[in-house]
């Protein structure tokens, strides 16, 4: 099976974040890491390859720093990488990111495309689903298990309240992978060395420019939640005060 894994570089989980000057996103000078849900998608792809053979290709979009995500994936065992490299990719919404990916892989023949369930920064959980739609492929989300069948694959989806759904799907297909379904491997030192010799194809913004358009989604303003202290005195006869207090605790503060 030939599997593409879409990966993203996101700010490190416990990194202190600062807003940029226009308060539309965070400042660049933070530490970055692999989006954790994507690490599970990669792990699942590597396991599928170990079982069924084939190839694992990883793709990301972002500035030069994002290449670290691809290097790590190559060190863990991915065969080759595609980097859509430009600062402009950071600000793309899910629709345009999916369109850029679709354009970058138009000459490839994948059986499966994996994404993590969602990104730890924007958290849209949309790129995989939109990419499927653009390619005209079926998709399934929140995948916990993938089995190869004669007709394609059988996947297990996680629903709410402990319910699962099993779906038979034809290939090719797009799957968004649930986090925690496997144990992540480490990039070994030898793997890191070997990664140097694996192919990494760079795609410039100009190569996919015609496929993307204006963002449909925009962040207008980001702000740090304001902490406020407010003291309110409820006055009146005790019975009335108690009634008002219960009402506030129940409806305003929702602690009851």
């Amino acid at each position, binding site marked *: 099976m030939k599997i593409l894994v879409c990966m993203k570089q996101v700010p490190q989980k*416990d990194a202190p974040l600062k807003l940029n000057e226009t308060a539309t996103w965070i400042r660049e000078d933070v*530490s970055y*890491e692999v989006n954790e849900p994507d690490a599970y998608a990669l792990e699942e792809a590597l396991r599928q390859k170990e079982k069924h053979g084939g190839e694992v290709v990883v793709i990301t979009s972002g500035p030069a720093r994002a*290449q*670290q995500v691809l*290097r*790590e994936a190559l*060190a863990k065992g991915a065969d080759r990488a595609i980097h859509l490299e430009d600062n402009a990719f950071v600000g793309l919404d899910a629709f345009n990111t999916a369109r850029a990916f679709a354009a970058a892989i138009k000459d490839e023949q994948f059986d499966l495309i994996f994404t993590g369930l969602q990104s730890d920064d924007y958290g849209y959980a949309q790129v995989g689903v939109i990419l499927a739609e653009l390619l005209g492929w079926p998709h399934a989300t929140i995948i916990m298990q993938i089995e190869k069948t004669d007709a394609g694959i059988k996947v297990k989806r996680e629903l709410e309240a402990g319910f699962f759904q099993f779906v038979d799907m034809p290939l090719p297909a797009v799957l968004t992978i649930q986090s925690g379904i496997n144990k992540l491997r*480490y*990039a*070994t*030192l*030898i*793997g*890191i*060395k070997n990664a*140097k010799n694996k192919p990494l194809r760079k795609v410039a913004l100009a190569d996919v420019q015609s496929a993307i358009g204006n963002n449909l989604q925009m962040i207008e303003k980001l702000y740090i939640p304001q902490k406020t202290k407010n003291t309110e005195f409820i006055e009146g006869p005790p019975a009335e005060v108690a009634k008002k207090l219960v009402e506030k605790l129940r409806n305003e503060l929702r602690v009851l």
Partner: protein
Amino acid sequence: MAIKFKGVDYIEFDAMLNDDERLVRDTARKFIEDNLIPIIEECNRAGRFPRELVKPMAEMGFFGASLKGYGCAGMSNVEYGLVTQELERGDSGVRSFVSVQSALVMYPIYAFGSEEQKQTWLPAMQQGEKLGCFGLTEPDFGSNPGGMRTRARKVGNEYVLNGEKMWITSGSIADIAVIWAKVENEDNKVRGFLVETDRKGFKAEDIHGKWSLRASVTSGLSLQDVHVPESNLLPGSNGLKSPLMCLNQARYGISWGAIGAAMSCYDCALQYSLLRKQFRDQPIASHQMVQEKLAWMITEITKAQLLCLQVGKLKDQGKAEHYHISMAKRNNVWMALECARLSRDILGANGVADDYPIMRHMMNLESVKTYEGTQDIHTLIIGSRITGIDAF
């Protein structure tokens, strides 16, 4: 209350590392965080070497990481140093085990061994299937290894070894010992021998009651008429400079390792000082005397990083001299021990308990300060370099 390590980088040191170096560091850090940190306090209490980590560490490529071929990763010296930093951020004893396996056993086989010896031992040691120890120090000869009493005598096509070795990391768990001995038939020249530890006359007894490096094995070795075939001689070993070359490798790793131990103490003290409140319900980090300690530590850690990075770069260019490495080892271990003591101060009574890693690092670093050339010996090496006069 467990405090999770957050990493230490004051002057954008990470920006001086390339992508691979950062990836190597982050990977080693994650491995240690996942696999060693959860068990290290128990190992330290019990005086237990975490043998279960040998295989996983081998799979990571930690053994012989800077050697090329024979299944080894072929890391640069800076990458190798960053691995030892992360290992020692976990524990000096575990880092010591890796240093001995890599720098003191695999390295001499790699540098002085025959092709047959390399083929026999290096891949198996890289895989962690075979463990090694290094026998140079003796009960009466530490800083002055040239005085060693262990002798090898050539009899027919065998060598017969006799002597005692002391303070040998991994002695009783090793499959192979690199034993340094004076060869009687060669004018008492010091040469290295590969001695399989199951040979008749070879005994290893653990040293108990250590208050330091409790998560690694330390033994005394006794060799009584141990016969080895002449093919067990390391053919390239030639005089005392051969074991000293091994020590150079190991000391280089230690100088990075000490940074790891210092980072662990500093980061713990910093986080603690922000949580711990005293006087007017203020965190103790708001006190000038606590800030002074923290500022001293981060400054010294940063200087130590720069020192190591430069020595590592010199080493990659083949230009690192033993006196460069002496400066890095001497400064960084001292700096780490001071950080441990200052951090312990900041944690007050809590610093004494093994809920926190500080006291363990402090006790470990007392050994690290002494082994592989004591603080004083490295002072004299630097002194000899700058004055041209040996003061040993």
